[in-house]
Structures are given as structure tokens and as C-alpha cells.
């Protein structure tokens, strides 16, 4: 406990310097700005804004990126409430009640409660990250290659189970990601694999390229086809602050949402999307007046918004302690860290404590900023949303394009991104979920490395994965999860959650 406080104090001393506060502020602001634009999720936002952190010192860069992440998360909910278009998938559920509230002229309270809920959830999650960091790190040090491999299998299985749509297709997507990740040089022998002799491919395909292509450009291609009219809440938004009954009603929802979100966020493969769905469903089920949901119930905004923010922050835990990105956004953070010469994993906490704790403390500051800054700025976001899409998407495309080019100054990367954009479009058309593919793509090289190492240490004995206890437990959980997800009864429930 004392340790924890000492560590947080160290973090505060790093995060509270004027420069870092400034960076956090810029990150949160820019993140919200981009996150508000419809059709850009947090992944595309971070990928797009990655270049602006290149020139910064590592701590500052990570603080800014984290700020961008939850700024984007919050921006997504703003769009959901005001335009009925989710800014990203984790705020889909917010549209149900949030937009209804906005239609009833209560956009102000809806936005405020989203911000307050996010802030509360963020605070709790920050403490959780700090508290769980050290013990999980010591667990991670006991992990050998076999355990790491099994843990990644578990993460991928979670991603399958938690993705919406067919389990089988999600599995196929993971394998597709894994296969794609094999492109490039072999780590041990340096042999060129599946490169067609193209020199640019010998380093593999960058994660930013795949993520930006599939999630950024692919999304734009789909949005262009949708001829839906955007009904933006007209008129001035008055009465920002929620009333006392509002607060009373949502207090419990925020608490429950935070708990659900924190738990789901830690799980590998989980994350913000499932957290918000689960929190909403749960809230509706225990409510005394479930018929109010979908007609502007403030709990229906408070619970999912707290949950997705809590999950967004606790998903840093597996990354910072085990070095395994639990979702695509965290995978992008790995990329960002590598650019600054940091290898995510248990050693970050012991070797660079000021970086680890500074980043955690900055999450607090960032969440506070979101509440303070965003409420008065709602008017600006509304005005931004009134810009027609035909003017927005060229802007998005050119920023993304320049962003990708500046990562490596490589025209080849830009061309590849265009191809992945088409791939993302095709996947959406065939009803394949891209998220498991991205996760497979990110974990592919790590999985191969650990699999090879485990096999080598065990002298070719495949049973090593089930004879080592931790590994066996992890694999057992994955198997159970997979079987459960395939069972017809559970499958029906799962679909119910996603269609609600």
C-alpha cells in the first residue's frame, strides 16, 4: 500500500511538470477533435496522430498518446449522443439512450454524465492499474515461452468469443492475421518469407499500415456508401449540468459500469466494446423500470460510458506488465513505444519506473482535463459535426496518408495502406470482423517466437503446453471459452447482447 502511494507520488512528480501537463492537454484536445469526426475510431485516431509524437521525449510521447486515446474515446461518445452515429464501435450502445436524450433537449446532461462517468471510471481504473501492476509483473517473470504462447492463445480466443458475429469466421480471421504476420524476415535465420522478392517487405508489413488501412480507409469506403441522413441536434444546447435526480439515478450505474469495464478490460482480447455492451445489458436487466431504456434513460448513458472508459484504461495492464497487447489499440501503442526505444513488458516497470508511473499518473490528469475542457467545448464539437461528410473525408484521407508516409518516409507503406483499405472493405462486405485479424497480425511474430522457443526447450515435446501448470490452465480456459461460445444456447444469448 505504502509502495503504491510512493509510486503514484513519483508518477505525479513526472506527470505534473508543465511540459507534460501541456502535452497531456494537447493530446486530449486533439484526440477529442479527431474522435468526434464520425467514422474514425480510436485506432485510426492514434495511427493518424502518431507522427506528432515523434519529436518528443519518450515519457512525453506516451503521455500524449494516452491522452489521445481517451480523448478519442470521449469524442466518440459525443458523436453518439449528438448525431446518432457512433464515433467508434465502443460507443455504439450510447446512441440508444444518449441520442434520445439529446432529442428531448437534454444533450447537455447526457454529455455531462458521460464525462463524469468516464472520469470516475478513469480514476478507479488508474488506481487498479497501479495496484495490479506490481503483482502481475512478478507473475509475468515466472512465465516461460510455453506460458506466453498459451496466454496469447487465450487472448486470441477471447477476441473470438467477444467479437460479434460467427465464431468460426472470427477464428478464420485470426488465422488470416497470423498468416499475414509471417511476411518478412525470419527472426532466427533471416530468411525472407513470402516477400515476393520485394525489398520493402523484408521488414514485414507495419502494424500502422494494416490498422490504418483496415480501420481507417476501410471505414471511409463503407461510410461513403451509406446514404443515411445525419440528424444533428439543432439549436443551442442549454443546461449542461445534470440535475440532482439525474445524478442520483446514474451514481449506481456508473459504479457498476466501472466494475464491469475494469474486469473486461484486463482480459486479453477484451476491451472497450464488449464492456459497454455488457454494462448496458446488465443495467437494463436490474433496472426497476427497464421500459425507460431506449427512450432516454440517463443510466443507459452512464453505465456504458463508464464501462468503456474503465476498460480502455485497464487494457494497459496486460501491455505494461506482460508485454502483450490485449487489443488493436494497445498494439499500436506497442508500435509507438518501439519507435521510442521502449520494449513493453515487465521490465518497463523496474527499469523505467518514471515512465511507467508517469504515464499512469497522467491518466488521472488527462481524465480531469476531459471533464473540465470538454463540457464548455461541446458547442465547438457540434459545429464540427455540421461540416458535411464530403468535406470531412478528404481531410481524413490526407491526414492519414501523410501520417503513414511520415512513419518511415516510405511511399511503399502508403500504397500498402490503400490495399489494406480495400481488404477492410471486402471483409466488411463478407461479414468478417476485422478486429480479430488485427490482433492475430500483431501477436503472430510473438506467438511464433515463443512457440519455437518452447518447442526447442522441450526438445520437440508438444505436451509441454499441458504439463506446465500455468500453461495448462490458460489453455484449458481457452478451450472452455471456445466450446461455450459454440454452444447453441450461449450463442443465442451472445447474439442477443450484440443486437440489443
Amino acid at each position, binding site marked *: 500500500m505504502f509502495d503504491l502511494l510512493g509510486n503514484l507520488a513519483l508518477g505525479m512528480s513526472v506527470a505534473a511538470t508543465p511540459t507534460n501537463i501541456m502535452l497531456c492537454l494537447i493530446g486530449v484536445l486533439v484526440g477529442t477533435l479527431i474522435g468526434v469526426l464520425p467514422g474514425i475510431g480510436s485506432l485510426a485516431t492514434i495511427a493518424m496522430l502518431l507522427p506528432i509524437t515523434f519529436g518528443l521525449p519518450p515519457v512525453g510521447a506516451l503521455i500524449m498518446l494516452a491522452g489521445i486515446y481517451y480523448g478519442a474515446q470521449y469524442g466518440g461518445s459525443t458523436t453518439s449522443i449528438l448525431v446518432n452515429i457512433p464515433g467508434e464501435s465502443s460507443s455504439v450502445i450510447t446512441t440508444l439512450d444518449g441520442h434520445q436524450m439529446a432529442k428531448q433537449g437534454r444533450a447537455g446532461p447526457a454529455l455531462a454524465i458521460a464525462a463524469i462517468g468516464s472520469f470516475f471510471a478513469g480514476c478507479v481504473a488508474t488506481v487498479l492499474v497501479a495496484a495490479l501492476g506490481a503483482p502481475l509483473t512478478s507473475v509475468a517473470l515466472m512465465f516461460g515461452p510455453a506460458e506466453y504462447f498459451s496466454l496469447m492463445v487465450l487472448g486470441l480466443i477471447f477476441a473470438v468469443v467477444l467479437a460479434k458475429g460467427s465464431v468460426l469466421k472470427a477464428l478464420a480471421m485470426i488465422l488470416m492475421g*497470423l498468416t499475414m504476420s509471417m511476411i518478412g524476415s525470419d527472426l532466427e535465420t533471416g530468411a525472407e518469407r513470402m516477400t515476393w522478392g520485394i525489398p520493402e517487405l523484408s521488414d514485414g508489413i507495419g502494424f500502422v499500415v494494416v490498422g490504418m488501412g483496415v480501420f481507417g480507409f476501410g471505414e471511409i469506403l463503407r461510410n461513403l*456508401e451509406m446514404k443515411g441522413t445525419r440528424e444533428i441536434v439543432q439549436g443551442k444546447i442549454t443546461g449542461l449540468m445534470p440535475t440532482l435526480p439525474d445524478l442520483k439515478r446514474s451514481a449506481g450505474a456508473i459504479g457498476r459500469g466501472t466494475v464491469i469495464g475494469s474486469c473486461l478490460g484486463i482480459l486479453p482480447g477484451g476491451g472497450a466494446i464488449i464492456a459497454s455492451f455488457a454494462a448496458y445489458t446488465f443495467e437494463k436487466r436490474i433496472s426497476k423500470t427497464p421500459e425507460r431504456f431506449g427512450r432516454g434513460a440517463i443510466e443507459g448513458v452512464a453505465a456504458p460510458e463508464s464501462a468503456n472508459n474503465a476498460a480502455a484504461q485497464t487494457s494497459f495492464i496486460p501491455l505494461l506488465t506482460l508485454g502483450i497487447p490485449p487489443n488493436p489499440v494497445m498494439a499500436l501503442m506497442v508500435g509507438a513505444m518501439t519507435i521510442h526505444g521502449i520494449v513493453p513488458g515487465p521490465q518497463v516497470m523496474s527499469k523505467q519506473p518514471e515512465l511507467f508511473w508517469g504515464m499512469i499518473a497522467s491518466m488521472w490528469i488527462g481524465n480531469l482535463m476531459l471533464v473540465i475542457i470538454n463540457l464548455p467545448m461541446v458547442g465547438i464539437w457540434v459545429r464540427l459535426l455540421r461540416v458535411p461528410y464530403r468535406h470531412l473525408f478528404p481531410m481524413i484521407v490526407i491526414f492519414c496518408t501523410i501520417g503513414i508516409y511520415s512513419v518511415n518516409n516510405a511511399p511503399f507503406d502508403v500504397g500498402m495502406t490503400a490495399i489494406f483499405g480495400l481488404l477492410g472493405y471486402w471483409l466488411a462486405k463478407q461479414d468478417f470482423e476485422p478486429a480479430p485479424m488485427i490482433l492475430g497480425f500483431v501477436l503472430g511474430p510473438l506467438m511464433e517466437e515463443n512457440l519455437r522457443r518452447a*518447442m526447442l526447450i522441450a526438445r520437440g515435446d508438444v505436451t509441454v503446453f499441458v504439463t506446465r501448470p500455468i500453461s495448462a490452465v490458460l489453455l484449458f480456459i481457452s478451450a472452455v471459452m471456445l466450446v461455450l461460445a459454440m454452444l447453441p444456447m450461449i450463442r443465442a444469448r451472445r447474439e442477443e447482447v450484440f443486437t440489443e
Partner: protein
Amino acid sequence: MWNVTRSGAGAAEDHKLNVWGGSVLAVFALIALVISFIRPGPAGFFGPIMWARLFSILILMAGIGVAMGQLHVRNKQDFFGGVALIGFAVIAFLISIDLPGMRGFAFGPGTAPRLFAGVLATLGLIVAITGLFTDGPEGQRFTLRGTLVVGGALAAWFAMVWLFGQFTAHYAQPLATLVLAVVAFAGMHVLDNVGVRGPFMITLSIFAFAMFIRPLGLVIASFLTILLCAAAADDLQMHKGRATALILLPIITFPVFVYIWPFGETVSVWPFGNIALREIIAAALSFAICFGASPDARWRETIIIAGALTLFCSILFPWGLNLPFQLWPRFS
């Protein structure tokens, strides 16, 4: 590429699509088979090459079955999605065939790729089979013409790169991209008719950035990219007259640049020693002039936005963020 099918689309239409879809599968499978025989790897009978052949034969059979109408596909999304995944796995097999596999109990560089590709092919097979036996949404499907236009554009690009490569090796790709862009602009109604305008123009615009950024610098590259990208929105229309002008202008300005502009090798005011570069600039300028002079409000608005955005990017990225960008054309 895709069209929303109206309810009760004719059986004849359905038949045509099946023939088309099946033939594509069959042709792909045949090519894969031929390659697997031309380039057999070192592997033995149960090695990767056999897997590649086995799955190719499966795709071939499925393709023929669909084309002949023997195989009734109930869920097109799943069936064709699954088959595409198998195809992807077959390609992965074929290009990783030369890589050494297991050595004793140690993995070789080829082990993991083929392992993953093998599982992928199996899963793809299951997905495809599910598509045969369960009903799916009768939603969107490929249209022949859309695919042909995209494929044709790609083929044309490669042909042009080869052609221009005969004169100017260094600038063949940007030049080919520019010609493609101009033709796409002029033929916008064709793209609209086949329903591929959005994907085509956006992909082209991103490609264009990749091609132009090195020779032309940030300013011109981003301006052209934004312009191409904005044309993906289908309320932007192109009049026949302007389309003709767009095609003719570069052709007319070409000799102007080549013959009337007298410097190049000798005077360094316009420091290009290369005819193709003048052509790129000429086409780019005429491209811009053509729209700038147009009476259509939407185009003028688009140009203004593109200009403003270009200015913003040119200030933000090189100076605001201090990234190493080359702003203006620079030629060697």
C-alpha cells in the same frame, strides 16, 4: 464492385453471376495448380505442395460446380468468403514453398507460415461448407462490370508503367498514375454506372500520394490527393465538355512543354532534365486549371477546400511538427 440486389432479382441474373463467380474460382485454381507444378518445392509427398494442390483442386471443383449450377450456394457471403480464405492460404503455401521446414525438433523458417496457412485453409473450408448448407442474407454481391473496371485499371497502370518505362525509367510510375487519374476524372460517369466510384477514387488518391510524394513534393502531392479523394463523393459531377477538355488539355500542353519551353538541360531555372517530368507538371497544372475555370459551384468549392487543406498540411507537418518533408518538386 458490389450492388445492392433488389428483391426478386431475376433467375437469369442469378445464373449469370454464378457462371461468373464459378469461372473466377476455377481460373484462380487452375493458375495455382499450374504454378504448383512449375515450381515444386523440396518438400515430399505430404509436404506443403500437396496441400496447395489439394486445396486448389477443391477450389477448382467448387468453381466448376457453381458455374455449372450443380452447386447451389445458399449463403453467398460465407461461401465466397471461405473460398477466398482458402485461396489466400494456397497463395501463402505457394510462396513459402522453398523455405526449409522442421529440422529435427527445431522449427525452420517455413514451419510457422505453413502451419498457419494450413489451419487457415481448413477453417476457410469449413466456412465455405457452412455457406452451402445455411441460409444467409441475400445482400450485396459482386457485379461483373465493376470488377472488370477495377481489374482493367490495374492492368492499364502496369501497361503504362512498362510503356513509359521505355522512355523514362525513373518517372514511369508517377506518370502512369497521373494518366490514370486524369482518365478516371474524365470517365467519372462510367465509374458511377458500375458502382465503384467511392472505392476506386479513394484507393487511387492514396496510391497517387505514394507515387507523387517523392518527385513532386508535399504541396502538389497532397493537393492532387485531396482532389482525387473529394471526387469519391458521388454528388460531384463531371460534364461531358469538361471531361473532353480534361483529356485534351495535357495532350495539347505536352508539345508546349517539350518543344516551346526551350530550357531544361541548359538553363536551370526549371531544373528538369527530363521530358516526363515536364509532362507530369503539365498534366497536373492543366488538371487544376481545368477545374479552377469551371462554372460549377461544387467544383470550385472543392478546389478551394483542397487548396486550404494543402496549405494547412504544408504548414503543419514540415514546420508545426518538424517532420522531414520535401515541399516542392525536386528532380535529379
